Protein backbone atom coordinates (compact mmCIF):
# COMPACT_ATOMS: atom_id res chain seq x y z
CA UNK A 1 0.00 0.00 0.00
CA UNK A 2 1.36 3.37 -0.89
CA UNK A 3 2.24 5.54 2.09
CA UNK A 4 2.18 2.61 4.47
CA UNK A 5 4.73 0.58 6.36
CA UNK A 6 3.90 -3.07 5.72
CA UNK A 7 5.42 -6.17 7.29
CA UNK A 8 4.56 -9.45 5.58
CA UNK A 9 5.62 -12.83 6.91
CA UNK A 10 8.57 -11.33 8.78
CA UNK A 11 10.82 -13.48 10.93
CA UNK A 12 13.51 -12.22 13.27
CA UNK A 13 16.09 -14.00 15.35
CA UNK A 14 18.82 -13.11 17.83
CA UNK A 15 22.18 -14.88 17.76
CA UNK A 16 20.69 -17.52 15.43
CA UNK A 17 17.86 -18.18 17.91
CA UNK A 18 14.47 -17.72 16.22
CA UNK A 19 12.27 -15.25 18.09
CA UNK A 20 9.32 -14.21 15.98
CA UNK A 21 7.94 -15.54 12.74
CA UNK A 22 5.12 -14.83 10.30
CA UNK A 23 4.74 -11.30 11.64
CA UNK A 24 2.23 -9.34 9.59
CA UNK A 25 1.59 -5.68 10.38
CA UNK A 26 0.50 -2.62 8.48
CA UNK A 27 0.74 1.03 9.48
CA UNK A 28 -1.00 3.75 7.53
CA UNK A 29 0.25 7.35 7.80
CA UNK A 30 -0.69 8.79 11.18
CA UNK A 31 -1.20 5.36 12.75
CA UNK A 32 0.12 4.50 16.18
CA UNK A 33 0.67 0.86 16.99
CA UNK A 34 1.87 -0.47 20.34
CA UNK A 35 3.70 -3.79 20.42
CA UNK A 36 3.19 -5.69 23.66
CA UNK A 37 4.36 -9.03 24.99
CA UNK A 38 6.64 -10.51 27.63
CA UNK A 39 10.34 -9.68 27.95
CA UNK A 40 12.66 -11.62 25.67
CA UNK A 41 9.96 -12.14 23.08
CA UNK A 42 11.78 -10.17 20.40
CA UNK A 43 10.10 -6.76 20.46
CA UNK A 44 13.40 -4.88 20.29
CA UNK A 45 14.66 -7.30 17.66
CA UNK A 46 11.61 -6.59 15.54
CA UNK A 47 12.14 -2.83 15.80
CA UNK A 48 15.81 -3.29 14.85
CA UNK A 49 14.78 -5.34 11.84
CA UNK A 50 12.27 -2.71 10.72
CA UNK A 51 15.09 -0.13 11.06
CA UNK A 52 17.23 -2.51 8.95
CA UNK A 53 19.89 -2.52 11.67
CA UNK A 54 19.73 -6.32 11.79
CA UNK A 55 18.82 -8.81 9.11
CA UNK A 56 15.37 -10.36 8.86
CA UNK A 57 13.42 -12.71 6.66
CA UNK A 58 10.23 -11.82 4.88
CA UNK A 59 9.11 -8.48 3.47
CA UNK A 60 9.20 -5.06 5.04
CA UNK A 61 8.17 -2.23 2.73
CA UNK A 62 7.43 1.45 2.89
CA UNK A 63 5.55 2.81 -0.14
CA UNK A 64 5.79 -0.72 -1.56
CA UNK A 65 9.56 -0.49 -1.67
CA UNK A 66 12.01 -2.51 0.43
CA UNK A 67 14.98 -1.09 2.32
CA UNK A 68 17.26 -2.41 -0.43
CA UNK A 69 15.24 -0.50 -3.01
CA UNK A 70 15.24 2.65 -0.90
CA UNK A 71 18.94 2.34 -0.16
CA UNK A 72 19.66 1.53 3.47
CA UNK A 73 20.68 5.02 4.68
CA UNK A 74 17.62 6.56 2.97
CA UNK A 75 15.41 3.88 4.51
CA UNK A 76 16.73 4.58 8.00
CA UNK A 77 16.22 8.29 7.41
CA UNK A 78 12.55 7.55 6.72
CA UNK A 79 12.19 4.87 9.41
CA UNK A 80 14.05 6.16 12.46
CA UNK A 81 14.66 3.99 15.50
CA UNK A 82 14.91 5.62 18.91
CA UNK A 83 16.87 3.16 21.02
CA UNK A 84 16.25 2.35 24.67
CA UNK A 85 17.83 4.43 27.41
CA UNK A 86 18.60 7.50 25.31
CA UNK A 87 21.95 6.89 23.62
CA UNK A 88 23.91 10.15 23.55
CA UNK A 89 26.63 11.02 21.05
CA UNK A 90 29.75 13.01 21.94
CA UNK A 91 29.43 16.78 22.33
CA UNK A 92 26.66 18.97 23.68
CA UNK A 93 22.94 18.29 23.61
CA UNK A 94 22.69 20.74 20.71
CA UNK A 95 25.36 18.76 18.82
CA UNK A 96 23.20 15.70 19.40
CA UNK A 97 20.12 17.43 18.07
CA UNK A 98 22.08 18.40 14.95
CA UNK A 99 23.57 14.91 14.51
CA UNK A 100 21.07 13.98 11.82
CA UNK A 101 22.10 16.91 9.65
CA UNK A 102 25.80 16.40 9.01
CA UNK A 103 25.04 13.43 6.79
CA UNK A 104 24.96 12.89 3.06
CA UNK A 105 21.22 12.07 3.08
CA UNK A 106 20.40 15.18 5.13
CA UNK A 107 18.73 18.43 4.21
CA UNK A 108 19.46 21.75 5.94
CA UNK A 109 19.25 21.75 9.75
CA UNK A 110 16.09 23.08 11.39
CA UNK A 111 16.09 26.63 12.76
CA UNK A 112 17.13 26.98 16.38
CA UNK A 113 13.69 28.01 17.65
CA UNK A 114 12.17 24.81 16.20
CA UNK A 115 14.64 22.88 18.31
CA UNK A 116 13.99 24.98 21.39
CA UNK A 117 10.21 24.66 21.03
CA UNK A 118 10.52 20.91 20.74
CA UNK A 119 12.73 20.76 23.83
CA UNK A 120 10.20 22.88 25.74
CA UNK A 121 7.36 20.60 24.66
CA UNK A 122 9.34 17.68 26.07
CA UNK A 123 9.77 19.50 29.37
CA UNK A 124 13.43 20.33 28.83
CA UNK A 125 14.82 23.74 29.68
CA UNK A 126 16.60 25.35 26.73
CA UNK A 127 19.72 25.62 28.91
CA UNK A 128 19.94 21.83 28.69
CA UNK A 129 20.87 22.27 25.02
CA UNK A 130 24.24 23.73 25.93
CA UNK A 131 25.19 21.01 28.37
CA UNK A 132 27.54 18.16 27.56
CA UNK A 133 25.35 15.25 26.51
CA UNK A 134 27.14 12.79 28.79
CA UNK A 135 26.33 14.97 31.82
CA UNK A 136 22.54 14.99 31.53
CA UNK A 137 20.27 12.52 33.33
CA UNK A 138 18.99 9.33 31.74
CA UNK A 139 15.48 10.77 31.62
CA UNK A 140 16.72 13.91 29.86
CA UNK A 141 18.78 11.80 27.44
CA UNK A 142 15.70 9.76 26.58
CA UNK A 143 13.81 12.90 25.64
CA UNK A 144 16.76 14.39 23.76
CA UNK A 145 17.05 11.22 21.70
CA UNK A 146 13.35 11.45 20.83
CA UNK A 147 13.80 15.10 19.83
CA UNK A 148 16.87 14.18 17.73
CA UNK A 149 14.80 11.63 15.83
CA UNK A 150 11.78 13.91 15.37
CA UNK A 151 13.92 16.72 13.94
CA UNK A 152 14.87 14.62 10.90
CA UNK A 153 11.11 14.34 10.21
CA UNK A 154 10.87 10.60 9.65
CA UNK A 155 7.89 8.93 8.01
CA UNK A 156 7.95 6.18 10.62
CA UNK A 157 9.17 6.43 14.20
CA UNK A 158 10.23 3.27 16.01
CA UNK A 159 10.17 3.82 19.76
CA UNK A 160 11.72 1.35 22.18
CA UNK A 161 10.46 2.07 25.69
CA UNK A 162 10.41 5.85 25.19
CA UNK A 163 9.11 6.63 28.67
CA UNK A 164 10.75 3.91 30.79
CA UNK A 165 11.93 5.54 34.00
CA UNK A 166 10.37 8.93 33.30
CA UNK A 167 8.22 10.63 35.94
CA UNK A 168 4.47 10.96 35.20
CA UNK A 169 4.77 14.60 34.11
CA UNK A 170 7.60 13.90 31.65
CA UNK A 171 5.77 10.80 30.42
CA UNK A 172 2.68 12.90 29.71
CA UNK A 173 4.78 15.46 27.79
CA UNK A 174 6.51 12.77 25.70
CA UNK A 175 3.16 11.15 24.90
CA UNK A 176 1.72 14.51 23.83
CA UNK A 177 4.66 15.09 21.47
CA UNK A 178 4.27 11.61 19.96
CA UNK A 179 0.51 12.09 19.49
CA UNK A 180 1.04 15.43 17.82
CA UNK A 181 3.70 14.05 15.45
CA UNK A 182 1.32 11.28 14.43
CA UNK A 183 -1.48 13.78 13.89
CA UNK A 184 0.91 15.36 11.39
CA UNK A 185 1.07 12.15 9.34
CA UNK A 186 4.00 10.32 10.86
CA UNK A 187 3.28 6.77 11.98
CA UNK A 188 4.83 5.09 14.98
CA UNK A 189 5.58 1.60 16.25
CA UNK A 190 6.04 1.69 19.98
CA UNK A 191 7.30 -0.92 22.40
CA UNK A 192 6.14 -0.27 25.92
CA UNK A 193 5.93 -2.08 29.21
CA UNK A 194 3.44 0.46 30.56
CA UNK A 195 0.07 -1.31 30.14
CA UNK A 196 -1.87 1.97 30.10
CA UNK A 197 0.33 3.74 27.59
CA UNK A 198 -1.45 2.49 24.42
CA UNK A 199 -4.74 3.80 25.76
CA UNK A 200 -3.27 7.18 26.66
CA UNK A 201 -1.71 7.41 23.21
CA UNK A 202 -4.84 6.23 21.48
CA UNK A 203 -2.75 3.47 19.93
CA UNK A 204 -3.90 0.12 18.62
CA UNK A 205 -2.10 -2.80 20.25
CA UNK A 206 -0.68 -6.00 18.88
CA UNK A 207 0.35 -8.82 21.18
CA UNK A 208 3.51 -10.17 19.57
CA UNK A 209 3.21 -13.41 21.55
CA UNK A 210 0.98 -14.73 18.78
CA UNK A 211 3.94 -14.48 16.39
CA UNK A 212 6.30 -16.39 18.66
CA UNK A 213 8.56 -18.53 16.49
CA UNK A 214 8.37 -22.31 16.85
CA UNK A 215 11.40 -23.32 18.87
CA UNK A 216 11.90 -19.92 20.46
CA UNK A 217 12.52 -19.87 24.17
CA UNK A 218 11.13 -16.53 25.14
CA UNK A 219 12.04 -16.86 28.78
CA UNK A 220 15.67 -17.81 28.14
CA UNK A 221 18.51 -15.33 28.39
CA UNK A 222 20.02 -13.21 26.86
CA UNK A 223 17.53 -10.34 27.18
CA UNK A 224 16.12 -8.87 24.01
CA UNK A 225 18.39 -5.84 24.12
CA UNK A 226 21.22 -8.06 22.93
CA UNK A 227 19.55 -8.79 19.66
CA UNK A 228 21.90 -9.55 16.83
CA UNK A 229 21.33 -11.69 13.82
CA UNK A 230 24.20 -13.22 11.96
CA UNK A 231 24.76 -13.92 8.29
CA UNK A 232 22.47 -12.38 5.69
CA UNK A 233 19.26 -14.27 5.51
CA UNK A 234 16.57 -11.82 4.61
CA UNK A 235 14.77 -11.84 1.30
CA UNK A 236 14.89 -8.68 -0.76
Amino acid sequence: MNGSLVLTDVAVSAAERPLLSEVGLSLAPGALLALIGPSGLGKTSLLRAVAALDDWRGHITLDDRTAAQWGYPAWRRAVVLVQQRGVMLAGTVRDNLAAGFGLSVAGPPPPEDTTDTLLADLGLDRRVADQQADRISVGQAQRVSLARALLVQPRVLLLDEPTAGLDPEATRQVEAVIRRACAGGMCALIVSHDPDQPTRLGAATVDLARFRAPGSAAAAPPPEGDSATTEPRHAR
Partner: protein
Amino acid sequence: MPANTPAILPLSSFDLAVASALVLVAGVISVAMRVGLHRQLAVAALRTLVQLVLLGYCLEFLFQLDAAPLVLAWLALMITAAGRAAMKRPSRTFRGAFLRGWAALAISAVLTTFTVTAAIIGIDPWYDPQYLIPLAGMVLGNSLTGISLTVDSLLETLDARRGEIECLLSLGATRWEAARGAIRTALRRGMTPILNAMAVVGLVSIPGMMTGQILAGAPPMEAVRYQIMVMFMLAGATAVGSIIVAWLVYRRLFNDRHQLRAELIERRND
Protein backbone atom coordinates in the same frame (compact mmCIF):
# COMPACT_ATOMS: atom_id res chain seq x y z
CA MET B 1 77.61 0.20 5.59
CA PRO B 2 80.62 -0.86 3.50
CA ALA B 3 81.93 -4.29 4.42
CA ASN B 4 85.52 -3.21 4.59
CA THR B 5 85.00 -0.57 7.27
CA PRO B 6 88.11 -0.82 9.41
CA ALA B 7 86.81 0.83 12.56
CA ILE B 8 84.74 -2.01 13.99
CA LEU B 9 86.32 -3.79 16.95
CA PRO B 10 85.24 -7.45 17.03
CA LEU B 11 83.66 -8.90 20.18
CA SER B 12 84.87 -12.30 21.34
CA SER B 13 82.78 -14.87 23.22
CA PHE B 14 84.71 -13.86 26.31
CA ASP B 15 83.59 -10.26 25.81
CA LEU B 16 79.98 -11.43 25.70
CA ALA B 17 80.47 -13.45 28.86
CA VAL B 18 81.66 -10.26 30.55
CA ALA B 19 78.58 -8.44 29.19
CA SER B 20 76.35 -11.10 30.73
CA ALA B 21 77.69 -9.99 34.10
CA LEU B 22 75.57 -6.87 33.59
CA VAL B 23 72.42 -8.99 33.42
CA LEU B 24 73.70 -10.93 36.42
CA VAL B 25 73.86 -7.68 38.39
CA ALA B 26 70.19 -7.10 37.55
CA GLY B 27 69.43 -10.65 38.67
CA VAL B 28 71.23 -10.22 41.98
CA ILE B 29 69.34 -7.00 42.65
CA SER B 30 66.07 -8.76 41.83
CA VAL B 31 66.84 -11.55 44.33
CA ALA B 32 68.09 -9.18 47.02
CA MET B 33 65.12 -6.86 46.72
CA ARG B 34 62.67 -9.76 46.28
CA VAL B 35 61.29 -8.22 43.10
CA GLY B 36 60.81 -11.74 41.80
CA LEU B 37 61.99 -11.00 38.30
CA HIS B 38 65.19 -13.07 38.27
CA ARG B 39 63.60 -16.08 36.59
CA GLN B 40 62.02 -13.93 33.87
CA LEU B 41 65.30 -12.12 33.49
CA ALA B 42 67.20 -15.37 33.03
CA VAL B 43 64.71 -16.60 30.44
CA ALA B 44 64.79 -13.26 28.63
CA ALA B 45 68.59 -13.20 28.57
CA LEU B 46 68.70 -16.74 27.28
CA ARG B 47 66.13 -15.95 24.61
CA THR B 48 68.11 -12.90 23.52
CA LEU B 49 71.20 -15.05 23.18
CA VAL B 50 69.59 -17.94 21.34
CA GLN B 51 67.38 -15.87 19.04
CA LEU B 52 70.13 -13.51 17.99
CA VAL B 53 72.69 -16.24 17.43
CA LEU B 54 70.16 -18.12 15.30
CA LEU B 55 69.40 -14.90 13.42
CA GLY B 56 73.11 -14.39 12.87
CA TYR B 57 73.50 -17.83 11.33
CA CYS B 58 70.43 -17.33 9.14
CA LEU B 59 71.65 -13.96 7.92
CA GLU B 60 75.16 -15.27 7.18
CA PHE B 61 73.58 -18.10 5.25
CA LEU B 62 71.28 -15.71 3.35
CA PHE B 63 74.10 -13.30 2.57
CA GLN B 64 76.34 -16.08 1.29
CA LEU B 65 73.74 -17.74 -0.92
CA ASP B 66 72.53 -14.36 -2.17
CA ALA B 67 69.50 -15.88 -3.96
CA ALA B 68 66.30 -13.91 -4.63
CA PRO B 69 63.80 -16.70 -3.80
CA LEU B 70 65.46 -17.31 -0.43
CA VAL B 71 65.47 -13.62 0.44
CA LEU B 72 61.80 -13.33 -0.47
CA ALA B 73 60.96 -16.44 1.53
CA TRP B 74 62.77 -14.97 4.54
CA LEU B 75 60.81 -11.76 4.05
CA ALA B 76 57.53 -13.70 4.00
CA LEU B 77 58.54 -15.42 7.22
CA MET B 78 59.29 -12.07 8.86
CA ILE B 79 55.92 -10.67 7.73
CA THR B 80 54.09 -13.70 9.13
CA ALA B 81 55.85 -13.48 12.48
CA ALA B 82 55.11 -9.76 12.63
CA GLY B 83 51.48 -10.37 11.65
CA ARG B 84 51.03 -12.85 14.46
CA ALA B 85 52.56 -10.46 16.95
CA ALA B 86 50.43 -7.57 15.69
CA MET B 87 47.12 -9.39 15.95
CA LYS B 88 47.83 -11.12 19.26
CA ARG B 89 48.02 -7.89 21.23
CA PRO B 90 44.61 -6.22 20.72
CA SER B 91 42.14 -6.95 23.52
CA ARG B 92 39.44 -7.87 21.00
CA THR B 93 39.53 -9.89 17.81
CA PHE B 94 37.33 -11.39 15.10
CA ARG B 95 37.53 -14.30 12.71
CA GLY B 96 39.83 -13.37 9.86
CA ALA B 97 41.71 -10.74 11.86
CA PHE B 98 45.11 -12.36 11.35
CA LEU B 99 44.73 -12.48 7.58
CA ARG B 100 43.85 -8.79 7.48
CA GLY B 101 46.74 -7.82 9.74
CA TRP B 102 49.06 -9.92 7.63
CA ALA B 103 47.85 -8.31 4.40
CA ALA B 104 48.23 -4.79 5.82
CA LEU B 105 51.75 -5.57 7.01
CA ALA B 106 52.75 -7.23 3.75
CA ILE B 107 51.52 -4.37 1.60
CA SER B 108 52.98 -1.61 3.77
CA ALA B 109 56.32 -3.40 4.24
CA VAL B 110 56.80 -4.36 0.60
CA LEU B 111 55.71 -0.94 -0.64
CA THR B 112 57.95 1.12 1.62
CA THR B 113 60.95 -1.20 1.78
CA PHE B 114 61.19 -1.59 -1.98
CA THR B 115 60.59 2.12 -2.54
CA VAL B 116 63.61 2.76 -0.33
CA THR B 117 65.87 0.04 -1.70
CA ALA B 118 64.99 0.50 -5.37
CA ALA B 119 64.20 4.18 -5.78
CA ILE B 120 66.26 5.82 -3.02
CA ILE B 121 69.31 3.71 -2.15
CA GLY B 122 69.36 1.97 -5.52
CA ILE B 123 70.72 -1.40 -4.40
CA ASP B 124 72.09 -3.91 -6.88
CA PRO B 125 70.92 -6.65 -7.16
CA TRP B 126 67.41 -5.53 -6.22
CA TYR B 127 67.13 -8.20 -3.54
CA ASP B 128 70.52 -7.56 -1.87
CA PRO B 129 69.80 -9.09 1.57
CA GLN B 130 72.34 -6.89 3.34
CA TYR B 131 69.99 -3.92 2.80
CA LEU B 132 66.62 -5.53 2.26
CA ILE B 133 66.44 -7.66 5.40
CA PRO B 134 67.43 -5.08 8.03
CA LEU B 135 65.32 -2.35 6.43
CA ALA B 136 62.30 -4.66 6.17
CA GLY B 137 62.86 -5.62 9.80
CA MET B 138 62.68 -2.01 10.94
CA VAL B 139 59.64 -1.33 8.79
CA LEU B 140 57.82 -4.40 10.10
CA GLY B 141 58.64 -3.64 13.72
CA ASN B 142 57.10 -0.19 13.48
CA SER B 143 54.25 -1.09 11.18
CA LEU B 144 53.21 -3.92 13.47
CA THR B 145 52.95 -1.56 16.43
CA GLY B 146 50.84 0.85 14.39
CA ILE B 147 48.59 -1.91 13.07
CA SER B 148 48.20 -3.49 16.47
CA LEU B 149 47.17 -0.21 18.13
CA THR B 150 44.86 0.72 15.27
CA VAL B 151 43.02 -2.60 15.45
CA ASP B 152 42.84 -2.48 19.24
CA SER B 153 41.32 1.00 19.22
CA LEU B 154 38.95 0.37 16.33
CA LEU B 155 37.53 -2.87 17.75
CA GLU B 156 37.23 -1.32 21.20
CA THR B 157 35.23 1.62 19.86
CA LEU B 158 33.00 -0.46 17.60
CA ASP B 159 32.25 -2.82 20.46
CA ALA B 160 31.90 -0.40 23.37
CA ARG B 161 30.21 2.39 21.39
CA ARG B 162 27.93 0.24 19.33
CA GLY B 163 24.89 2.16 20.56
CA GLU B 164 26.28 5.46 19.33
CA ILE B 165 27.26 4.07 15.94
CA GLU B 166 23.85 2.50 15.48
CA CYS B 167 22.28 5.77 16.58
CA LEU B 168 24.06 7.50 13.69
CA LEU B 169 23.01 4.71 11.32
CA SER B 170 19.43 5.15 12.56
CA LEU B 171 19.53 8.79 11.56
CA GLY B 172 20.48 7.84 8.00
CA ALA B 173 24.26 7.81 8.22
CA THR B 174 26.09 5.63 5.72
CA ARG B 175 28.39 3.02 7.20
CA TRP B 176 31.32 5.30 6.42
CA GLU B 177 29.69 8.27 8.14
CA ALA B 178 28.96 6.11 11.15
CA ALA B 179 32.44 4.60 11.31
CA ARG B 180 34.72 7.47 10.43
CA GLY B 181 34.95 8.85 13.97
CA ALA B 182 36.08 5.46 15.25
CA ILE B 183 38.51 5.08 12.34
CA ARG B 184 39.96 8.54 12.91
CA THR B 185 40.55 7.79 16.60
CA ALA B 186 42.11 4.44 15.74
CA LEU B 187 44.51 5.91 13.16
CA ARG B 188 45.55 8.62 15.60
CA ARG B 189 46.30 5.94 18.18
CA GLY B 190 48.22 3.82 15.67
CA MET B 191 50.37 6.75 14.54
CA THR B 192 51.13 8.10 18.03
CA PRO B 193 54.28 6.04 18.75
CA ILE B 194 56.03 6.89 15.50
CA LEU B 195 55.01 10.56 15.80
CA ASN B 196 56.43 10.64 19.32
CA ALA B 197 59.59 8.96 18.13
CA MET B 198 59.99 11.49 15.32
CA ALA B 199 59.45 14.37 17.73
CA VAL B 200 62.23 13.34 20.11
CA VAL B 201 64.67 11.56 17.79
CA GLY B 202 68.18 12.79 18.45
CA LEU B 203 67.11 14.81 21.49
CA VAL B 204 66.61 11.96 23.89
CA SER B 205 68.36 9.02 22.31
CA ILE B 206 70.43 8.16 19.30
CA PRO B 207 68.41 5.61 17.33
CA GLY B 208 69.69 2.05 17.28
CA MET B 209 70.51 1.93 13.61
CA MET B 210 72.47 5.16 13.78
CA THR B 211 74.28 3.97 16.90
CA GLY B 212 75.23 0.84 15.02
CA GLN B 213 76.54 2.74 12.03
CA ILE B 214 78.57 5.08 14.19
CA LEU B 215 80.00 2.19 16.20
CA ALA B 216 80.88 0.54 12.90
CA GLY B 217 82.85 3.61 11.93
CA ALA B 218 80.53 5.48 9.60
CA PRO B 219 80.90 9.26 9.63
CA PRO B 220 78.10 10.76 11.77
CA MET B 221 76.61 12.81 8.92
CA GLU B 222 76.29 9.72 6.77
CA ALA B 223 74.60 7.89 9.64
CA VAL B 224 72.32 10.90 10.07
CA ARG B 225 71.25 10.82 6.42
CA TYR B 226 70.37 7.16 6.73
CA GLN B 227 68.50 7.76 9.95
CA ILE B 228 66.42 10.55 8.43
CA MET B 229 65.51 8.32 5.54
CA VAL B 230 64.66 5.51 7.96
CA MET B 231 62.39 7.74 10.08
CA PHE B 232 60.49 8.87 6.99
CA MET B 233 60.26 5.29 5.82
CA LEU B 234 58.90 4.16 9.19
CA ALA B 235 56.34 6.96 9.28
CA GLY B 236 55.17 6.05 5.80
CA ALA B 237 55.01 2.34 6.56
CA THR B 238 53.10 2.88 9.80
CA ALA B 239 50.59 5.19 8.13
CA VAL B 240 50.04 2.89 5.16
CA GLY B 241 49.77 -0.22 7.35
CA SER B 242 47.37 1.43 9.80
CA ILE B 243 45.13 2.80 7.05
CA ILE B 244 44.98 -0.51 5.22
CA VAL B 245 44.16 -2.51 8.33
CA ALA B 246 41.54 0.03 9.43
CA TRP B 247 39.93 -0.20 6.00
CA LEU B 248 39.95 -4.01 6.05
CA VAL B 249 38.47 -4.18 9.56
CA TYR B 250 35.83 -1.62 8.60
CA ARG B 251 34.86 -3.62 5.51
CA ARG B 252 34.61 -6.75 7.59
CA LEU B 253 32.49 -5.30 10.38
CA PHE B 254 30.12 -3.20 8.29
CA ASN B 255 28.22 -4.99 5.55
CA ASP B 256 26.68 -3.74 2.30
CA ARG B 257 23.42 -3.12 4.14
CA HIS B 258 25.22 -0.51 6.26
CA GLN B 259 24.84 -2.64 9.38
CA LEU B 260 27.42 -2.88 12.15
CA ARG B 261 28.14 -6.54 12.77
CA ALA B 262 29.34 -6.09 16.35
CA GLU B 263 28.46 -9.70 17.10
CA LEU B 264 31.56 -10.75 15.16
CA ILE B 265 33.83 -9.05 17.69
CA GLU B 266 35.19 -11.40 20.34
CA ARG B 267 36.72 -10.22 23.58
CA ARG B 268 39.87 -11.92 24.73
CA ASN B 269 39.84 -13.19 28.27
CA ASP B 270 43.36 -12.32 29.31
